[in-house]
């Protein structure tokens, strides 16, 4: 009897997990893509996070916000040292604006492309901090928790990234002019 109940509970839990993933997969993949800048890395990060979540689904599903919980796993997976080692990340060159400013009408799209390309040159933690700040709209305290650092460090990651982006965009803007 107890075994049957346990089996039924496990099956129900599996169904829960399946339907939850079906519902949230898009949001998770979008977030992971913005975080990593690469479709394959995004899928890998989400898959790893979901594997971890599946193993402890009982706890994850009881969390206040399971989506935030799994996104945290995605961030952890992305900034973990072994994943960076696997990517064999080389030091990024000086950031350059790869998409030139376009004439009226397409200007904002070109700017978005340029910003996206510049973000790809940021170190992992700076990029993660920027994504969490401007895509997820988290506070610095929340970013600090996700990146396992002090709030001041999270703030510093964002501001350094912004300084680099601003500097590069204004330099390129001057050259375009």
């Amino acid at each position: 009897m107890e075994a049957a109940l346990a089996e039924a509970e496990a099956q129900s839990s599996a169904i829960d997990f399946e339907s939850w993933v079906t519902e949230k997969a898009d949001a998770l993949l979008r977030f992971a893509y913005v975080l990593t800048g690469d479709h394959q890395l995004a899928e890998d990060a989400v898959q790893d996070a979901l594997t971890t979540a599946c193993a402890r689904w009982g706890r994850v599903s009881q969390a206040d916000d399971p989506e935030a919980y799994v996104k945290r796993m995605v961030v952890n997976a992305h900034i973990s040292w072994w994943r960076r080692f696997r990517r064999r990340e080389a030091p990024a060159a000086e950031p350059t604006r790869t998409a030139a400013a376009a004439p009226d009408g397409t200007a904002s799209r070109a700017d978005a492309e340029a910003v996206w390309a510049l973000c790809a040159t940021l170190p992992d933690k700076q990029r993660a901090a920027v994504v969490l700040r401007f895509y997820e709209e988290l506070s610095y305290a929340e970013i600090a928790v996700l990146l396992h650092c002090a709030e001041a460090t999270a703030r510093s990651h964002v501001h350094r990234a912004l300084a680099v982006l601003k500097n590069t965009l204004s330099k390129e803007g001057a050259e375009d002019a």
Partner: protein
Amino acid sequence: MPEPDEQELGPQLADAFQSKAHTVQGLRDRGLAREARRRVHKRRQTLIAGSAAVVVAVAIGGVWGAIGAPSPIPTSTGDNQSSAQDSGGGTDSKNQPEAAASACPAQHPILTAAGHEAVAPGTGLDLDTPVFGFEACRYRLVEGEQLLLGSATFTATTARQVVDAIKVLPERNPSLPVFKCTAETARPKEAIVLRFDTATGIREIWVGYDGCASAGFFTGTRTYGLYAAPLNLFMKGGVRPVGGIYLDHLKGW
């Protein structure tokens, strides 16, 4: 309140992220949940197989220990190798309570200590204390690569010989050079811990022979110079180093 840079670039970033995020299509039906469950299942199977292997290994080790064979751990029994020299070894083993139980710990305080002189208070051997045998444990101390390199067990006779050979030594061996030391070369790459069985438990002497800062036998309260005579009693098998900054200048070891 957002700072000027945030106000200026924030909307641009948010716009770029949003527009890129919406390009993510077609990844949804790839069975993420199914793959996650498959991986969890596989991990659990691996874990169970690993646990089973550990249980079998422990069981084999237990049987091995019960039938009185030597430890399967790759250690050398120093006195067995030197039994011809150590004439009193056979009868002496009666006075060696639980010597085999005091194996060298993989995680020893010397691995994290400031140096081979830093024997913790209360753990060093008082050389007037009766000893019933000892283990010599050779450790690599290189940062990030700390490791037990080898160990050997010795009888009470050898233990007494080692203690007697050390206690007459001066604080420093004047025939050894004094090195100009840098921080990089000061830290020893390895050292040996002698763990003596005494009536009050394990007491230690740390032996330093590498690193340019110091060398000798350290008890925590006393220092004795590095000489070959005591070293020759236990530097055998896996406990014999290939060299060391001071050892390279010591004759007859």
